[in-house]
């Protein structure tokens, strides 16, 4: 909302109000000033000058050479306009001035050989008019050397004020002035409202047929003259960015911005039988509005109508047919009170926002309406010269009662942690028009009619805090407590994963929870996706069923930016519909499933291509990824995890993938992306891309943050290696299982350390295993170890027909 400082000063007594004080004060009481525009400052160095002489430019037909004097100096100006003569007063932009339109700085210049020390400005150049011909010619009486903003009457400061949505009372210059006076202890000027003589009766009839209208005041003016509005009205409207239209429309707008009460004027000749009817619209009833949009209404909308047709969409916008035109002679003025919710509903459903609806939605002052009508009448009488003013017709369906709130003043101090006296508190409240009866410690506070937002004690606490100053409230840190719980296992798990994967060179990503139909369709495991009813775009219409497609999209995005060799992970939820038969769920009914996932992707080379110390050619592979997950699981102390061969994920390479099994449950998968699937993401088939996905909720249960110490062995161990050829179909896990089954004496750890699938060897491979032996009681003898090794070798020979190398 735009507020003019000049306008405020006409309402507040103190004329020394500086822009910075207004800005600071309004912001401190919750009316945030978002922007301050000092029009005077914008026209700095643009002053009133007088044309002394005008001669033709010797070298250009269209240019003139002017001598222009100010109160101090005389300047030569080369000018392209023609509409000035000697002795005319003009707006002279001196060297150093910045022309608002185009934001360019005036410099000393030479134009076709003639020196020029400034510029004579047009309204357009000063951003005071959209289009203008010629330069501004000021009144002859204007003072030389005066700043142009003052001479043009635009020496104003405009504040852009953000108001809270529950404060209808501050949406006017008067409302803002009232708050300022409360905060700065200023007096408002007394408003004397002259009574205007009327005919004593009225031809108007008002029927209120809908509870959405609580009060409707109508007044007929006959024989008015439509003309431009007076300059003080025009100036004010322009200062807050409104376009003057004609005296009637401008006066109603002026009054609204002054008092906060929206008004409307109808052409009386368009109102059948002089009968205004306030009613709800019929379904599919049509109205064409002032801005020429045509609406199809429904029964929730509130209409102003006559017997035959709708006249206006109540509180929002007038109809074009009943609007004021240059031919209008008789008018009916409307000053009404409409239900907030009704106006908001209609305004929302048609996305129609007007200055009027903005105020009705937030609440206008039921008790100030008569005054508003009187003020308006005064202006219409003076500036539209009506031949006849009829009596005011006031139709109230319901009277609003004033609220009373009873408070012990000590409670205010307790809540705010202040030491205010009763007097300090009442001073604050009285200043902003609350009425108070004091009964010992108790304050019986009557809320003024315009404060529709104040309902409970806490609202009063807020008023006191606001004007006492939130920044004067103490700052005290509450002591720590042993009574609250610390239940954050999931949080700790996520934190540990983030840390570990970071050290394993992964970069964490965060992607939108939304996705496309296509990305969800890849995950065809019969899960029901969730669709948004009002998505922002087709690309964000569904909630993700899986994190994989979007992380592959990211690979593609980065490849296009030549970021290669990627390692990404994301911790995020996936969403699915659990129960689709429920139409409107109850608050605690869970019909959706949200699952926390850890997803990762690895592409390209393992070794950084800038590393000169190592072989750069190794591609990332299954074993590398598996090892990293093993590192993670070991760090998280996941007790027994296994990688199992069978995965039912159709977008993984069938031979290079595994499911991840923890404590007997599948919690996720790991593998190479299927070459056919890669193509969906603008990536080449032969790209080397590995992914994993783990359901965190399932890992949460086996995650263990406790470390337990095992005592160190007292006797040295012995290591033996065994290399052999074996059928290439035999898996490491078969060999491991066999050796485990044999329960070899003193064997503490063992494992594979070499695998060779040699050229020329068909059907068999070479493997090498290490075996560590240890006895906790004594040092092992060679004989004992030989015997154990022999057992191992014999078992392997018997079971897998190995050939020792």
């Amino acid at each position, binding site marked *: 909302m735009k507020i003019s400082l000049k306008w405020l000063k006409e309402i507040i007594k103190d004329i020394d109000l500086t822009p910075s004080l207004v800005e600071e004060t309004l912001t401190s009481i919750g009316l945030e000033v978002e922007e301050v525009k000092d029009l005077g400052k914008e026209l700095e160095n643009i002053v009133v000058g007088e044309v002394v002489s005008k001669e033709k430019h010797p070298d250009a037909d269209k240019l003139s050479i002017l001598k222009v004097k100010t109160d101090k100096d005389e300047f030569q100006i080369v000018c392209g306009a023609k509409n000035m003569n000697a002795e005319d007063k003009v707006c002279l932009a001196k060297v150093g001035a910045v022309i608002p339109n185009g934001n360019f700085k005036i410099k000393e210049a030479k134009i076709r050989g003639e020196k020029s020390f400034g510029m004579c400005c047009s309204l357009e150049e000063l951003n005071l008019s959209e289009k203008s011909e010629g330069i501004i010619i000021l009144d002859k009486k204007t003072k030389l050397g005066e700043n142009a903003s003052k001479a043009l009457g635009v020496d104003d400061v405009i504040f852009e004020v953000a108001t809270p949505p529950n404060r209808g009372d501050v949406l006017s210059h008067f409302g803002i002035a009232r708050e300022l006076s409360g905060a700065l202890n200023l007096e408002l000027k007394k408003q004397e409202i002259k009574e205007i003589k009327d005919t004593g009766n009225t031809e108007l009839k008002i029927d209120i047929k809908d509870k959405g209208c609580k009060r409707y005041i109508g007044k007929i003016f006959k024989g008015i003259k439509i003309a431009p509005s007076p300059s003080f009205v025009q100036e004010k409207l322009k200062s807050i960015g409104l376009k003057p239209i004609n005296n009637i429309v401008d006066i109603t707008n002026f009054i609204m911005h002054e008092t906060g009460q929206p008004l409307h004027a109808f052409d009386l000749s368009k109102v059948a039988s002089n009968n205004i009817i306030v009613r709800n619209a019929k379904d599919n009833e049509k109205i064409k509005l002032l801005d020429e949009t045509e609406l199809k209404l429904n029964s929730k909308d509130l209409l102003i109508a006559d017997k035959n047709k709708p006249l206006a969409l109540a509180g929002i916008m007038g109809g074009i047919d009943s609007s004021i035109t240059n031919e209008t002679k008789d008018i009916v003025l409307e000053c009404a009170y409409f239900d907030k919710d009704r106006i908001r509903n209609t305004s929302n459903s048609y996305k129609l926002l007007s200055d009027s609806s903005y105020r009705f939605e937030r609440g206008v002052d039921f008790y100030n309406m008569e005054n508003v009508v009187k003020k308006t009448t005064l202006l219409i009488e003076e500036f539209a010269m009506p031949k006849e003013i009829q009596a005011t017709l006031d139709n109230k369906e319901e009277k609003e009662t004033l609220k009373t709130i009873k408070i012990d003043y000590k409670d205010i101090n307790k809540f705010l942690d202040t030491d205010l006296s009763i007097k300090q508190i009442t001073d604050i409240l009285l200043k902003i028009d609350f009425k108070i009866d004091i009964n010992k410690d108790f304050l019986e506070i009557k809320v003024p009619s315009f404060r529709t937002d104040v309902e409970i004690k806490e609202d009063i606490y807020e008023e006191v805090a606001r004007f006492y100053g939130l920044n004067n409230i103490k700052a005290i840190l509450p002591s720590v407590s042993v009574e609250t719980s610390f239940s954050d296992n999931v949080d700790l798990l996520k934190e540990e994963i983030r840390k570990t994967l970071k050290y394993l060179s992964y970069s964490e990503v965060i992607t939108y929870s939304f996705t496309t139909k296509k990305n969800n369709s890849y995950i065809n495991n019969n899960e029901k996706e969730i669709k948004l009813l009002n998505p922002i775009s087709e690309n964000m219409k569904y909630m993700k069923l899986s994190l994989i497609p979007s992380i592959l999209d990211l690979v593609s995005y980065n490849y296009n930016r030549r970021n290669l060799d990627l390692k990404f992970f994301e911790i995020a939820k996936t*969403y699915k519909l659990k129960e689709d038969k429920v139409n409107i769920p109850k608050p605690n009914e869970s019909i959706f499933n949200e699952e926390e996932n850890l997803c990762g992707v690895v592409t390209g080379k393992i070794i950084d291509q800038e590393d000169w110390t190592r072989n750069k050619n190794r591609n990332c592979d299954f074993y590398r990824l598996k090892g990293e997950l093993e590192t993670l699981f070991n760090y998280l102390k996941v007790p027994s995890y296994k990688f199992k061969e069978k995965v039912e994920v159709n977008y993984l390479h069938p031979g290079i993938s595994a499911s991840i099994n923890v404590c007997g449950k599948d919690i996720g998968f790991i593998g190479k992306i299927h070459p056919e699937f890669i193509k969906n993401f603008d990536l080449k088939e032969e790209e080397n891309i590995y992914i994993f996905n783990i359901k965190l909720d399932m890992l949460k249960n086996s995650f263990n943050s406790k470390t337990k110490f095992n005592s160190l062995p007292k006797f040295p161990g012995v290591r033996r290696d065994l290399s052999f050829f074996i059928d290439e179909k035999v898996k490491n896990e078969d060999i491991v299982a066999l050796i485990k089954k044999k329960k070899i004496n003193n064997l503490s750890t063992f494992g594979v350390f070499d695998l060779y699938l040699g050229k020329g060897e068909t059907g068999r491979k070479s493997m090498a295993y290490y075996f560590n032996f240890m006895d906790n009681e004594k040092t092992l003898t060679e004989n004992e170890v030989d015997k154990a090794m022999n057992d191992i070798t014999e078992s392997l020979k018997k079971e897998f027909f190995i050939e020792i190398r």
Partner: protein
Amino acid sequence: LDKLKEKIDLLDKELKGSIEKISDLKSLEDFKVKTFGKKSEFAKISKSLSQISNENKKEAGQLINNFKKEFQNIIDTLENKLKTKETQEKLKNEKIDISMPGTYFKMGSNHPISIVEKQIIDIFKPLSYSVESGPEIEHDFFNFSALNIPENHPARNMQDTFYVKDKVVLRTHTSPVQIRTMKQENPPIRILAPGRVYRSDYDVSHTPMFHQVEGLFVDKDVKLSHLKGTLLYFAKRMFGDKTKIRLRPSYFPFTEPSAEVDITCVICGGKGCRVCKNTGWIEILGCGMVHPNVFKAVGYEGVTGFAFGMGIERIAMLKYGINDLRAFFENDVRFLRQFI
């Protein structure tokens, strides 16, 4: 005996003369063999000891021994000297170019939003706050009604809500976690609720998904000063000891009184710059005392409390000087890797 003495003196002179010429370990080794070997002059002298009379034997033996000791010393010293010299020579040839880069281990990174979220949590944890979470697909009751935002309430205009079905929304803030926690647990309550939230807004300064952290503190006799103290503590821990805060009255349906909180500008320290639009202040969060209607909705009586909520992206932008909100979700690896 005298003859022996004479021989030793002669040998001494001879050997001392030749040892001076030795300059490498190999010649020293030859010298050792020549001097003390079986065929050496010294061996001959040692053998001649048997021909010495018994009465002189002791003295002669001492002479021989002293001579040997002396020479052994000389040889050892020389040997050490030569060895050191040789090692030095060897190391000289092993010199590498230490200006070449080290074997590189590329660290990964955490997302700036995660980092800042963790920083916020780490600031509040010592104040006995626990971390709570709630669903992102949320019922109207938890997202709006219970938070004193009935149908038709102006606040429903303030946030453009994504709907999944009738009465089901993508949560527009983390505040529903307040309600879920209070419905489940009895006061006192101190919780933080971080997470994703959604609003139907997409432009330079809005993304349809973003992150918030919600704080809730409920107990007997919680005062406005407690809220202020908590926020000042947070601001100083997050942005540095010199940070000041400013509260501006504001409006949220679920708090009364409500305020928006500014901190002294992180760029100019309050002097006024482009980032703070010359005000010296930057808005970082919204807060207030819990509205009695919220307590009513969860069945709490006789308590007061405060709540606050902040956008993690906003804090991260201020902390790291990120000026484009969308960079958070584009996930260009060159952006991501800056946040180790």
